[in-house]
């Protein structure tokens, strides 16, 4: 319990130390673009593939329930709302944390072991400014963009399944998705994704920088980073649901 609290405190502290560089903006643009290219593009194929599967699953399950309640005409609407608002961002976030968050924790852990982080401090550069802040911004941006792409691919997967399983014409499916103001749902999902990206980046940077000397600690750091970001993801999602019910 004590360990958990100290980690939560450390993560929060790291967030504030990094957020200091947001106003006025002091961004290491080369590191920022390197991370966007290196982490974001690399994670694209697997995220999109899982998004297709997610959309297919959503239509299979929610579609069946909606059909049971006697409203086949709402299959597209129900799965559209579910994918855009809830399942898309969460599952893409989980995959992103497994792929990019854990890779980031391992990379920072290795930099810590090879004393590159200390070298930065020795040069008078704050490692939080040079390493953490660009990652934070990059992952927030990346996850928002990935969520838009992922939603699109999930709905494509959904339209294929609703065509094959419920004999629903893809054209009708897309009409059902697009006609009732999906922009609000999409924007809510993207806003969530920005917070998920913040959570994943700060958590993975924190556990990566926790590594001291021993290379074996890198494996532990990856494990803790994935577990903690998944927990944080659900807490954020819960807060969003609360805010929605209150509004």
């Amino acid at each position, binding site marked *: 319990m004590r360990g958990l609290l100290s980690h939560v405190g450390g993560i929060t502290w790291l967030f504030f130390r990094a957020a200091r560089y947001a106003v006025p903006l002091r961004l290491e643009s080369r590191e920022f673009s390197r991370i966007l290219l290196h982490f974001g593009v690399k994670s694209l*194929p*697997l995220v999109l*593939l*899982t998004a297709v*599967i*997610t959309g*297919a*699953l959503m239509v*299979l*399950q*929610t579609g*069946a*329930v909606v*059909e*049971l*309640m006697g409203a086949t005409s709402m299959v597209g609407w129900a799965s559209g*709302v579910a994918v855009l*608002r*809830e399942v898309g961002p969460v*599952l893409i976030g*989980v*995959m992103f*944390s*497994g*792929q990019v968050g*854990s*890779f980031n*924790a*391992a*990379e920072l*852990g*290795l930099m810590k*072991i090879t004393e590159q982080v200390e070298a930065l401090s020795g040069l008078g550069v704050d490692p939080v400014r040079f390493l953490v802040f660009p990652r934070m911004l990059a992952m927030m941006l990346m996850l928002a963009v990935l969520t838009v792409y992922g939603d699109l691919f999930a709905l494509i997967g959904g339209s294929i399944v609703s065509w094959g*399983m419920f004999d629903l014409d893809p054209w009708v499916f897309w009409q059902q998705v697009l006609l009732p103001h999906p922009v609000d749902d999409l924007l809510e999902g993207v806003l969530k994704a920005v917070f998920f990206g913040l959570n994943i980046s700060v958590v993975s940077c924190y556990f990566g920088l926790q590594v001291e000397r021993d*290379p*074996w600690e*890198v*494996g*532990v*750091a*990856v*494990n803790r980073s*994935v*577990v903690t970001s*998944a*927990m944080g993801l*659900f*807490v954020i*999602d*819960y807060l969003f*649901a*609360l805010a*929605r*019910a209150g509004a």
Partner: protein
Amino acid sequence: MRWLGSLVSSAVDILALLAETLRSLKGVGRHPERLLAELSSIGTGSLIFLFATAAFMGVIIVFQTATQINKAIPDLSMLGAGFIRVMTAEMIPLLTGLMVSARVGSAISSEVASMVVTEQMDALRLANTDPTEYIVAPKLVASLVAVPILGLVSLATGITAGMLVGWIVFEIHPSTFLNFRYTYGYHFLSFCLKLLSFAVLIPLVSVIEGFRTGRQGAFSVGQAATRGVIMSSFFVFVADLSVSLLERGLWGAP
């Protein structure tokens, strides 16, 4: 397209490792302490994590669907029935699989990778112990025992949490909420089938990613952990979709 090739070769490796592990399965009894250690790390170690995530998931889903339904038709009497069915057939198995991949997959991969790097695997072979029998088989048996139990615990937690939200926030009485009308026997069957396939896939995929390290030194341990999470969660998705499609194909009707 390189990643597609690597996915196919992973699938082949899984089958090969599965065959080898099944052959050395009777050796598990020779190392009961290994089995107990794995049970505690895969099962007991993941319990609180799954408990928390399943509770959050139940709460979130009820919140979201209830507000959506309230907008269209303010009748929440069938919410529980739909919720329990979706939780049983899809959400809880998928959540359990992904969370176990996150927690256990990375741990197994980095453990195996560090054993490969420090040549402990060779030491085992020198001591005339089969690494598959000593390392992989206990993990497989432990996860076959632990993952279904974890799934059942998550299911109970998620449904209870959803029920409480329905009761407190949306004033749906539990006797209305706990409605199993839409949940059929084959949903529970596919629940079990999904969990069992995850229980086989997650340890095997993570062990394979651990062995892939080669001898590039200690620094590859972190990469192995990363690959363990990604590949096991990917195979969880694939297995989940396969069982869901099979279920729909076999029984057709909703």
